[in-house]
């Protein structure tokens, strides 16, 4: 005679406190991985560094910007490039975890569903911040100068990090959707190119054809670059900052939901 097992007294339900505890565990795991692969950190900083040199010395001479030096125009954009490229490592890392089967283990454990994603994006943020710090140093080396008070400069750099963090959730969704590191890498370049080049990051929007201008003027990266430039270089920053924060919040909320949905459904 077989009797059905009666469920044991239920283990503690998932609470925000437990979710934070799980997230800290995942972040620790990913930080250890980042620490043990320093070459990845160098590679992810090398890309924006090359773009910086390219635009400062190869193409910059041919680009006219209204009222000022091109180096002060393009370096804030390179800061955003640095954190976007940092976000790309999130998509590649998640796709690798899916492929290796370790996500299966995570999903079979009683940990919070959001912890795997939040822990990863937070750990990857350390890589973006390191890369950003390197770009600030390099920017100085090639002639970039801040021209504002300490508080707005710090606010500008924080805004770069906030935007990068929001976009890392977009990249998390890309990694989970593609499920393959190589595909994730190629797919991740698309939003990067669209955001970076169809924008006011490298050249003023006024040189673009009319149909592109309205997109290029209002897309999230352009708005954020404008906000960062005014914070670092002076000028009325207010409405740019609010718009940039609204974009970051929107990207974060939407792609947090998309990534979490993809994670729940991910059956490698």
């Amino acid at each position, binding site marked *: *005679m077989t009797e*059905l097992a009666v469920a044991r007294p239920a283990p503690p*339900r998932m609470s925000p406190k437990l979710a934070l505890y799980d997230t800290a*565990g995942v972040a620790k*795991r990913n930080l*250890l991985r980042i620490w043990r692969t320093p070459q990845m950190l160098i590679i992810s900083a090398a890309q924006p560094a090359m773009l910086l040199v390219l635009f400062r010395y190869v193409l910059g001479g041919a680009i006219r910007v209204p009222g000022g030096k091109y180096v002060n125009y393009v370096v804030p954009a390179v800061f955003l490039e640095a954190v976007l490229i940092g976000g790309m490592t999130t998509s590649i890392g998640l796709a690798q975890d899916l492929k290796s089967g370790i996500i*299966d*283990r995570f999903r079979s454990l*009683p940990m919070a569903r959001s912890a795997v994603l939040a822990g990863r994006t937070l750990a990857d943020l350390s890589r973006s911040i390191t890369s950003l710090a390197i770009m600030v140093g390099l920017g100085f080396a090639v002639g970039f100068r801040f021209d504002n008070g300490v508080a707005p400069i710090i606010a500008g750099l924080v805004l770069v990090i906030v935007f990068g963090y929001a976009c890392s959730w977009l990249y998390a969704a890309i990694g989970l959707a593609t499920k393959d590191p190589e595909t994730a890498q190629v797919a991740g370049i698309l939003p990067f190119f669209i955001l970076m080049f169809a924008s006011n990051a490298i050249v003023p929007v006024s040189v673009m054809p009319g149909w592109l201008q309205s997109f290029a003027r209002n897309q999230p990266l352009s708005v954020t670059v404008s906000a960062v430039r005014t914070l670092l270089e002076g000028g009325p920053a207010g409405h740019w900052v609010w718009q940039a924060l609204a974009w970051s919040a929107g990207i974060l909320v939407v792609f947090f939901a998309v990534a979490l949905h993809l994670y729940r459904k991910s059956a490698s």
Partner: protein
Amino acid sequence: MDVAMIEVEQVEKRFGPTRALAGVDLVAERGKVLALLGPNGAGKTTLVRILTTLLEPDGGRARVAGYDVVADAEPLRSSIGLAGQYAAVDDLLTGRENLELVGLWYHLRKTEYRRRAHELLERFGLAEAGDRLVKTYSGGMRRRLDIAASLIARPPVLFFDEPTTGLDPRTRNDLWCFIEELVASGTTVLLTTQYMEEAERLAHQIVVIDTGRVIAQGTALQLKDEVGGDMLEARVHDVADLPRAAALLASLGNGISHTDPDQQRVSLPTKGGTVLLIDAGRQFEEEDIALDDLGIRRPSLDDVFLSLTGAASGDGTANLPGSKPMR
């Protein structure tokens, strides 16, 4: 009284047009090992993924440790451990870090998961390698670490998906001993395997599945009886005689003869005993077929498996071209 720790009722799962599971039923009792046996693509891994909440079933019901796999997925996960086909351990962490983090995610206390990680590293012969990065481990060490990770919180139900595939015989034997110890202490184990020897050694109950259905279940002994008891087996001296020998055996009984060209062997399920053996010997002599060996033996689980899965694939013969016992 026996308590059902895993209970599966009419579970179905589709992937597009493919029916991976077409209504599976099974029950595993507390402190027992249930072996899920079947060829590649039979649906074994799909069932394990459903029972460990990685996939939701399209139909039917399943409960593990009293929790429904869909409605109670969250508490269920605290009661199970999973070790997969591919060792899901982190290359860039040490063995100890891998175990301690899994313990953290089971919400064990820090002192507890540290102690457990230490014990498990000792138990699985990884004490010395415990503080080395996993990327320096051999395949067998990774597999042992993966299994250790599934045990860190002492869950009452364990799922092992082909736990010993690719392990050397000694490591495999160690692992079998360890699973026996766990089960003796009341843990319930569901394992999938392609090794008959493994199922025979460990399982209290064997469930054979093919193309998403249960085609037989019972103890190893029951399954052997089901395919017709003894086997009459002849090994021919000259491989060219094999088709004639197969025809001869087929004419003697009402079973289906099985040919194994590599071993130059034909076999036939039989209940005829020695009378049939003598009869066969006489006829081989009349037909002038030289034999190296002729005898009656008990069927192995391999025979059971081939006979069952051959019949289920619909062509009514276990004598598939090139089919060999799965080892």
